[in-house]
């Protein structure tokens, strides 16, 4: 580094890329994660994740053998951990799409280094989410295809007025589009890896995956067009998918579910949870692989701000629920809110307020936003808090609704937790595998940043 350290201008945003990065350093650093010898730490992490994944195998198998009775479900609480986890995982997925698509359309450069693993997180989160609607049904072997519209011998179509069918299409579309978008972004990087690969088999695999990418201007032109189109398609999905998932509840008539606030509240919550998970994954990746130059203070600061903003929207949602329970003068609504706040599950409600509303207020403080450990801890609280939010929506609304004779409690069983932990194991397993076989940060987009920076430096030095 030749020139003297520039004076920090507070009106300029922090840099998106660490100093002194060139095309070579970027490519070397990011592809080394894949091409270097398998680190022992990675193997250990895979084994642990694999072990937790076995819980998924075990829990799902036992579920298919015995039935949903192995969980804590009953009448009135017909939905439990499965739906809570479904919404939790789908919500988490939304951050990836927001980063990939919306921030792309808004031309935010700070998305470049986080969008790859965030989108991977989305794919794997949606995979985890997708297991639950199927597994939670009483007869998953028919649910798998009867929920799809096809001309069957019974001359019966799915019932399209049900939000659960809307889910099938929404989540299906979301998964497909996210997968295509993610794959599209991977093509130039697969080409890089194909060129960097040492063994013939890796070369062929990456070669097939990169679909003959040459890096020509024509290829780049097609790529940019496709990326913009897909971003355009994905953007409304960020808003619509979780709105539709929220309609699973809004269309129901029980107090605590029948609320018009749910679509925006859920979408905000999804972005909130998603960014928290991006941080939960991104901060360790940054630490273990020394990626501080790519995920900089600017990223931490911005992600912290997004979390704060969405957290405030979520807090507004909670406050409005309380307000309208009182303002509506509906005895059912009033009781539901009172029960939530002071009843047998009040512990979870107040934990929710702590995790989702109180602790994230620390993000107002810049030092907290720039502190990786601070952000990591807060993101874990938010992950837990968002799970608690879905728990409260699902379980506390169901357990005491209109007819007091049916009121009952939900007692979770080890199989509830086992399946949930198993999906976390699956998620981690896939993420850790992903880190090893695909570039965790988008190589070519960082190279774009390098190009922008040198262009900027040229113009800057021209101005100087």
């Amino acid at each position, binding site marked *: 580094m030749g020139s003297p350290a520039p004076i920090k201008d507070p009106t300029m945003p922090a840099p998106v890329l660490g100093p002194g990065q060139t095309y070579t350093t970027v490519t070397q650093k990011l592809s080394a994660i894949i091409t270097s010898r398998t680190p022992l730490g990675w193997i250990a992490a895979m084994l642990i994740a694999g072990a937790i994944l076995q819980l998924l195998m075990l829990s799902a198998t036992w579920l298919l053998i015995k039935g949903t009775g192995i969980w804590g479900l009953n009448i009135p609480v017909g939905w439990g951990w499965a739906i809570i986890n479904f919404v939790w995982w789908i919500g988490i997925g939304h951050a990836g799409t927001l980063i990939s698509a919306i921030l792309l359309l808004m031309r935010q450069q700070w998305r470049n280094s986080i969008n790859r693993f965030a989108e991977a997180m989305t794919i794997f989160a949606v995979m985890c989410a997708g297991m639950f609607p199927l597994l939670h049904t009483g007869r998953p072997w028919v649910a798998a295809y009867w929920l799809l519209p*096809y001309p069957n011998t019974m001359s019966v179509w799915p019932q399209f007025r049900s939000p659960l069918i809307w889910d099938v299409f929404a989540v299906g579309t979301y998964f497909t589009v996210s997968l295509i978008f993610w794959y599209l972004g991977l093509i130039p990087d697969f080409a890089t890896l194909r060129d960097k690969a040492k063994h013939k088999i890796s070369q062929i695999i990456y*070669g097939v995956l990169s679909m*003959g990418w040459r890096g020509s201007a024509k290829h780049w032109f097609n790529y940019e067009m496709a990326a913009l189109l897909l971003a355009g398609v994905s953007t409304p999905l960020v808003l619509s998918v979780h709105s539709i998932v929220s309609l699973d509840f809004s269309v129901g008539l029980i107090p605590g579910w029948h609320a018009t606030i749910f679509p925006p509240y859920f979408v905000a919550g999804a972005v909130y949870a998603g960014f928290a998970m991006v941080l939960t994954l991104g901060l360790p990746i940054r630490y273990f692989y020394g990626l501080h130059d790519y995920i900089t203070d600017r990223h931490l600061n911005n992600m912290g701000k997004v979390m704060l903003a969405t957290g405030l929207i979520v807090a507004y949602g909670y406050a409005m629920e309380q307000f309208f329970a009182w303002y509506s003068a509906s005895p059912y609504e009033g009781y539901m809110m009172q029960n939530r706040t002071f009843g047998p599950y009040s512990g979870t409600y107040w934990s929710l307020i702590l995790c989702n509303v109180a602790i994230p207020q620390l993000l107002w403080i810049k030092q907290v936003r720039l502190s990786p450990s601070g952000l990591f801890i807060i993101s874990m609280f938010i992950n837990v808090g968002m799970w608690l939010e879905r728990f409260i929506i699902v379980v506390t609304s169901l357990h005491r609704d209109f007819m007091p004779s049916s009121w009952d409690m939900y007692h979770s069983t080890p199989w509830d937790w086992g399946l949930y932990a198993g999906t976390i194991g699956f998620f981690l397993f896939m993420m850790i595998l992903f880190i090893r076989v695909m570039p965790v940060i988008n190589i070519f987009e960082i190279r774009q940043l390098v190009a922008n920076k040198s262009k900027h430096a040229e113009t800057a030095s021209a101005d100087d």
Partner: protein
Amino acid sequence: MAQLFPRGSNAFARISIVVVLVVVGTGLTILLNTNRLHYTTDVQVAKKQPVPFSHKHHVTGVGLDCRYCHTSVEESSFANIPPVETCMTCHSQIWTESPLLEPIRESYRTGNPIEWVRVHDLPDFVYFNHSIHVHKGIGCQTCHGQVDQMPLMWKVNTLNMEWCLECHREPEKYVRPREEVFNMAWKPMDERGHAVSQALLGAQLIQDYDINPSTDCSTCHR
């Protein structure tokens, strides 16, 4: 650096898109139609029975009416298989030494019913009632085919729900006068014996017999 892939790889990749679409499309079509295949539904599959009972011989040859054996079809939901005593009304006197009829005689002696192989069977969650269909003018032949020509029994219709709904939605296409329900040779005709269109005749019969078949689920699923 030497090329990893042969020259035609790009072309191959492009063609494979089309191929995959075609394969998936065909595969799905086949998969979704498995329940209509004769292999699955046993349509036109003659089933081996303990005794090779020939409807052709007994109906066309001997001249028995359906109800000689299937006695409960006008009153009950179930069109019964006759008890062995019905067979013995004739076979105690004719073909008494035939080895083919030995299972009948043995059943008569021991009281153990013959284990006929069911040809027309609906799942247990489907409740079909013969008596109302017979009463409203649905001929045996409409659902069971030309039984009088069958040396062994087989299905001519899938009995799938969509097949039942065809008639329930448009009964005028399948209904016949009550007197002709057991007539295997009937063709749509008016009282004077002139051929007439099923549509016209059907429309008239719908009114006469007050036919209004329900397509509510509980009609068949209880």
